[in-house]
């Protein structure tokens, strides 16, 4: 379908509206990062019987702003052995994908501005989900180049870990996302949202498994605890951004939290019905935004909860979870959903399809376990 804004051709007003939406999304992301940092610190200190930041502004709300201003005024250091140009480029390679990924997230319904109908979403390309996956893959470059260009060993180790981790979990995440795409029959994020009802979310339609896989993979993808091996302080100092200071460091920090907000927004879009919610009489344009933000907040809370609760994974445990558990599981689930869908279209009895699927799954699971055992045996012998 696409955005109705472009239906009558592109003129000055349309361009102005697009620029306006761009500004709104940019401002929203910046403010949400400020809020997210504060929210994370507050919630985690609540969970640890502390008070958390409470000096700057009411309830410490301006703490992040104060930290940001401090960072911007600090000296920008360049390590002796750093590759100058790549070193300065890397933070931007990290933050631009984080911004860009949010562009395809629908955060409201359709509204009218000066006689033009437009969706509350920066862009609605027909390949929205592919765009999301592409952006989250490109984000690896920022981190990899930052570690490599620092000319220092801890950042390099951190960035090698980060790349391996992000590439590994990319697969599981894509398969989970593919399930949502399969159910909507479209790659457009708006279509995926429209295919879900007010309460009939993909979370229930697909069975909870793709959602859980996405949740875990997204946590790993954003390098958040318990998968924050990339910046394991005990082992790697600060990880890939050890050598960064001042604005460059602030940009990495910004990108990290922006990624958290973005993957949460994507999860809300793909699995929780995005801005769908019960209709309320007054202010019909406002409520979808409220539903979207509410769901987003719940999701962000879950991430902070993870961080407060779970200890960090060991590197081999991380890889085991990604390759040996999440990828086979989400692959199997995708095939099962596909089989059920084909069965429905062909008019087969659903219990035969399900039974067959479970049987195939059991066989595959046994085979996988046997293979893993064999692999362990070979490794132990060698």
């Amino acid at each position, binding site marked *: 379908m696409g955005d109705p804004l472009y239906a009558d051709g592109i003129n000055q007003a349309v361009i102005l509206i697009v620029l306006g939406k761009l500004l709104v999304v940019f401002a929203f992301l910046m403010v949400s990062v400020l809020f997210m940092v504060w929210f994370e610190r507050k919630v985690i200190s609540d969970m640890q019987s*502390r008070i958390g930041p409470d000096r700057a502004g009411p309830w410490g709300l301006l703490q992040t702003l104060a930290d940001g201003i401090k960072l911007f005024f600090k000296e920008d250091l360049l390590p002796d052995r750093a590759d100058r140009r790549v070193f300065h480029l890397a933070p931007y390679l990290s933050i631009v994908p984080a911004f860009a990924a949010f562009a395809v997230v629908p955060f409201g319904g359709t509204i009218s501005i000066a006689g033009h109908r437009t969706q509350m979403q920066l862009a609605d390309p027909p390949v929205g989900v592919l765009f999301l996956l592409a952006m989250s893959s490109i984000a690896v470059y920022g981190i990899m180049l930052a570690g490599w260009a620092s000319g220092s060993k801890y950042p390099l180790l951190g960035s090698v870990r980060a790349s391996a981790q992000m590439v590994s979990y990319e697969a599981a995440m894509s398969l989970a996302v593919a399930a949502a795409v399969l159910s909507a029959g479209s790659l457009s994020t708006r279509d995926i949202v429209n295919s879900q009802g007010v309460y009939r979310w993909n979370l229930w339609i697909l069975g909870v498994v793709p959602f859980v896989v996405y949740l875990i993979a997204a946590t790993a993808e954003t390098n958040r605890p318990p998968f924050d091996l990339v910046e394991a302080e005990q082992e790697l100092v600060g990880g890939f951004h050890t050598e960064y200071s001042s604005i460059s460091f602030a940009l990495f920090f910004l990108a990290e939290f922006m990624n958290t907000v973005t993957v949460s927004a994507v999860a809300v879009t793909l699995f929780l019905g995005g801005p769908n919610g019960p209709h309320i009489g007054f202010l019909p344009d406002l409520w979808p935004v409220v539903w979207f933000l509410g769901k987003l907040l719940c999701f962000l809370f879950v991430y902070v909860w993870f961080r407060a609760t779970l200890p960090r994974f060991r590197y081999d445990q991380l890889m085991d979870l990604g390759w040996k558990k999440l990828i086979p599981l989400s692959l199997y689930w995708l095939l099962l959903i596909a089989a059920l869908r084909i069965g429905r279209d062909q008019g087969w009895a659903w219990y035969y399809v399900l039974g067959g699927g479970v049987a195939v799954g059991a066989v595959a699971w046994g085979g996988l376990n046997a293979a893993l055992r064999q692999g362990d045996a070979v490794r132990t012998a060698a």
Partner: protein
Amino acid sequence: MGYLDGFRITLKQMWGDRVTNVYPDEKRPKPDRFHGRHVLNRYEDGMEKCIGCELCAGVCPARCIYVRGADNPPDEPVSPGERFGFVYEINYLRCIHCDLCVEACPTEAITESKLFEFSFTDRQDAIYTKAELVVDDDGNPQKLPWEDWRPGDEQHTSAWVRATAPSGSAAYEGRVGWSGELGFGVRAPEKGQTAETDRAASAAPRKAKS
């Protein structure tokens, strides 16, 4: 549900008590025998207790006390006896607040207040002289501009907090001997003790303080 127990615990903590004190705004109560900055006490008639014997300077492990005694001027005596503390200086850059000076003092002249929140911008300010250490005419410690006194802090500055009796014998612990202090008079014995504590009572196991 081994994996999920942790989530329940962290969630429950959100509504639990906070352990943080909002420090400069609220302070936690200090222990009875807290060792803070010193004061030089005076008798009820306004005479100084210090006799310039230099025992405090001698016992000081950090060597932060400097005392010079002098003969009392006969027509205008500073202390009741023959001698008085002519110069009395404590260097707070060296003091470790061990309270040994307080234990050594035969006249309970030097004691410690509960004040520890004082800082200097100058090395000279770190050396407290008699002008700063001697209590004022109400018997209270002087409140210097760089010190953070709160109401009630000056109430527990006397010899009353000594671990042992002025005689040095632990058996006389808690007995009020000398303390006829300017502004306070003879103070009641320390909490949990009585003036009549005898050897048997002090030998018996002490009840836990509530």
